[in-house]
């Protein structure tokens, strides 16, 4: 177990550093002060910080801010009632968050340097107050300041949103009552607003999976993707490096030792083109050759092997239907995918396959799909089902529609998503997707079929018009979905590409329950408050050893550092970018030594930036606005815990450092 310990440290340097600082600082240096810690003194110190802020009329900012918010909200243009509420929520919370952040930075960063400068600290530090109590007291004090500001802003936001909700609901009711004023496709949405209002905190059921097929499957094995790289098949393997013999560097370069075979049972069949769009007359009567491209990559995509590396940049021809395509991944290429340490634990490899030529559709069976070791004939089998996906577009996976591709479908699968029991005959679904329209001014619509997998019951097809990022609510017969296990088949008959998302931002969500909006607002404000707490700690930390203007700057830098480093290098996709740059941007005839130098220095830069990003706090974890804005109940596990983690994971060590710095600081200027 101890053998793994250094690995653990190497993998979590930030966490280890944080724990070390807290333990050494608090229980080593500061044990005496920790034992002396008195809530009375701490509260007295914090009350001074609070009084100081209030007597400097800090609260007067709130009415100004409220005035600003109301002005901005009145000037905003929104395309429907829900959008009004969304924008208002966004403006209110964003403004409150910004105000509280800026204010705490300035108040907290200037406080200690000013007290040292005007020597009030003389009369504080000569009382039986420990430096720990001074640091903690000030943090608590500014946390109290931001609490009261957020309290006021929260009350205002609640009242203002309710006022807007009231007027909008009346407006929607009037619209619905006027005959012919409302299009049938948006009637359920407006009725939903009329019944439930526009302030929601819904508990949403998310789909397990999203698959895109070239036509609706008729059996579990009848699953196909289209050509032209518009679809892809994805599957995961788990490879145990111990099972693969080490390559011998002295061996014959043609040796397969240390490499593996990839066995791909690819199927293809020709598709009849829709008569409305026949092939151009000039095209040859013989069908084109079907080809695949593949990519094999590790979990964080730091290394990728494609058909290009195997000398086939145009793709690899698929043999006759029924034959298994076998490819050799040479030892050198494979070595990049696997962990360098031969004793490392098993690693995940992902295989992605795309296909060319739209004269065919393509499939792959799990039967015979394997990675095998030439020497031992050991076969690694896929550990997941094959996922059929669409190409990545601006709004998620692209689903093509219209007369060109009338058969394409997207299939959302929901499992165990039982609604809260009610008597209502309908269940509510929210659709929110992207539309990449092919013709100007055309309106886009989709059809949805709900299939209860337990009963086999199919609900009548629902058709609705859609706009990019606009929520549409659908009433679905309860019987089609109440078992909790159901499939939803989406088609797009209009001439557009849809962008469909999977996961937490899924484009189709099941509204299981509506919770209290006020509670959601409180949760949002709590997250903002946590952020202001972190900001306070950073600012006070900086001010223990810097003059206040520099402390303010350092606080801003620390807060934005993670984000900035990520802007430069996207942690997920661009590690291993060195080799890519050499491959893509350097002249082909560059000598290997300089190629290696370029590649490794780019990698070193990326590594540094990633380390910076790993050590600085990730303030994107304080996502207080997104959920409440979309009317989703904020889940503690998904939203609040990560925020708590960042606040304390980063704040606690900084607090201890601030204490240690102050303890050994001469507070007389």
């Amino acid at each position, binding site marked *: 177990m101890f053998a793994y310990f250094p690995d653990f440290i190497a993998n979590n340097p930030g966490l280890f550093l944080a724990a070390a600082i807290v333990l050494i600082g608090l229980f080593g240096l500061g044990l005496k002060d920790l034992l002396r810690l008195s809530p009375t003194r701490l509260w007295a110190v914090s009350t001074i910080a609070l009084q100081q802020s209030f007597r*400097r009329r800090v609260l007067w900012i709130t009415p100004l801010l409220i005035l600003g918010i109301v002005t901005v909200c009145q000037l905003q243009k929104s395309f429907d009632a829900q959008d009004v509420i969304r924008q208002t929520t966004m403006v209110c919370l964003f403004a409150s968050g910004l105000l509280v952040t800026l204010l705490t930075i300035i108040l907290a960063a200037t406080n200690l340097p000013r007290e040292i400068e005007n*020597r009030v600290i003389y*009369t504080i530090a000569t*009382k039986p107050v420990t430096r720990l109590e001074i640091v903690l007291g000030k943090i608590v004090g500014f946390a109290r300041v931001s609490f009261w500001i957020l309290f006021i802003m929260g009350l205002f936001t609640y009242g203002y949103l309710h006022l807007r909700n009231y007027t909008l609901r009346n407006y929607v009711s009037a619209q619905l009552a006027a005959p012919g004023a409302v299009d049938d496709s948006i009637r359920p949405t407006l009725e939903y607003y009329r019944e439930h209002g526009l302030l929601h905190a819904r508990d949403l059921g998310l789909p397990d999976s999203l698959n895109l097929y070239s036509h609706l499957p008729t059996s579990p094995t009848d699953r196909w993707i289209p050509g032209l790289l518009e679809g892809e098949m994805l599957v995961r393997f788990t490879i145990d490096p111990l099972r693969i013999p080490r390559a011998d560097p002295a061996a014959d370069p043609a040796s397969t030792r240390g490499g593996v075979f990839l066995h791909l049972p690819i199927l293809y069949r020709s598709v009849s083109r829709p008569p409305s769009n026949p092939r151009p007359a000039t095209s040859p009567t013989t069908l084109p050759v079907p080809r695949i491209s593949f990519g094999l990559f590790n979990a964080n995509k730091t290394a990728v092997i494609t058909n290009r590396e195997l000398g086939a940049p145009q793709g690899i021809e698929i043999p006759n239907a029924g034959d298994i395509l076998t490819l050799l991944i040479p030892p050198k290429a494979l070595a990049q995918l696997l962990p360098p340490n031969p004793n490392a634990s098993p690693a995940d490899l992902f295989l992605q396959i795309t296909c060319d030529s739209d004269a065919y559709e393509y499939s792959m069976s799990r039967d015979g799909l394997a990675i095998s070791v030439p020497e031992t004939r050991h076969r690694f089998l896929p550990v997941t089902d094959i996922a059929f996906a669409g190409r990545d577009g601006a709004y998620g996976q692209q689903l093509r529609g219209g007369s060109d591709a009338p058969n394409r479908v997207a299939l959302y699968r929901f499992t165990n998503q039982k609604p809260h029991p009610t008597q209502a005959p309908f269940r509510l679904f929210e659709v929110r997707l992207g539309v990449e329209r092919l013709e100007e001014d055309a309106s886009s619509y989709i059809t949805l079929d709900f299939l209860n997998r337990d009963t086999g019951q199919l609900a009548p097809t629902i058709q609705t018009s859609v706009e990019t990022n606009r929520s549409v609510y659908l009433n679905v017969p309860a019987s089609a979905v109440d078992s909790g296990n159901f499939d939803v088949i989406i088609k797009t008959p209009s001439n557009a590409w849809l962008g469909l998302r999977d996961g937490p931002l899924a484009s189709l969500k099941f509204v299981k329950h509506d919770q209290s909006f006020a509670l959601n607002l409180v949760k949002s404000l709590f997250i903002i408050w946590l952020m202001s707490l972190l900001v306070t700690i950073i600012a006070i930390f900086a001010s223990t050893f810097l003059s206040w203007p520099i402390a303010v700057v350092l606080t801003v830098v620390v807060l934005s550092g993670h984000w900035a480093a990520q802007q430069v290098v996207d942690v997920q996709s661009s590690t291993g970018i060195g080799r890519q740059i050499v491959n893509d941007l350097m002249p082909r005839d560059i000598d290997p030594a300089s190629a290696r130098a370029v590649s490794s220095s780019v990698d070193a830069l990326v590594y540094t930036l990633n380390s910076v990003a790993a050590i600085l706090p990730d303030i994107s974890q304080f996502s207080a606005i997104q959920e409440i804005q979309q009317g989703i109940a904020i889940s503690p596990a998904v939203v609040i815990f990560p925020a708590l983690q960042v606040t304390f994971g980063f704040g606690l060590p900084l607090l201890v450092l601030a204490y240690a710095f102050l303890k050994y600081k001469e*507070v007389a200027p």
Partner: protein
Amino acid sequence: MMPSDSQAIQTDNLTKVYRDFWGRDKVRALDDLNLTIHRGEVFGLLGPNGSGKSTTIKLLLGLIFPTRGRASIMGHPAGSPAVNERIGFLPEESYLYRFLNGEETLHFYARLFRIPRKERNRRVPKLLDIVGLDAKARKRKLREYSKGMARRIGLAQALINNPDLILLDEPTTGLDPIGTREMKDLILSLKAQGKTVLLCSHLLADVQDVCDRITILYRGKMQTLGLVKDLLQVRDITDIQMKGASDQHIAQLKDFLQSIGAPNATFSHPTTTLEDLFVRIVRENKDA
């Protein structure tokens, strides 16, 4: 030497060198100070401007750290929170929160000593009476206080915990003559209660009136230390004082003194003799 609880203050080779940003020596503000102040005495720390008096006090309070040497207060290292429970400190100027009023200020400092509310409500008005801040002044913000009022509230905050050791850095600056008088009376009454007082001042008359022992610092070095009455006594000179002497009386006295063999006797009006001492020491060292 072991620090013992019987000494109020003890310093061993206490030295403070102020350094600049790059760590280079700038000012040697205090040089090898060895000082012992006993319990229950009123001790005067004298010296011209910039001689290191305030530096000594800051070192004793742990506001700054010694470059070399040690300071201990009532047997504890300087600056430890435990010993601060028993200390009162009046800084050179009143460094207090200017947005609080007099009463709030005292309540705040009392809370730092964890004095219960009931006791606070008793002690705060009493102290405000002692330092002579009237009911109106108590409710005003400190930023509106005059210099003397600020000194008075500063003194009150130094006494809030009923300290055993009180460090007063130039307590009488800014006070009117009555205030100065009251301050002296207060110091004497503190002494009567058995408390230890460390007093820094330029006003030598005040020091002479209240101090048991004094030391004179010059350029960070201790020059003289002793009981006030010993230091001021010059053994081979006898001072004869009389009231209402006419010129004729003086001529007769001169003749008489000459007849007993003391031809160089001088006749002058008495001065504040501590001032003499002070001026002499400063001048001697300046020439050296």
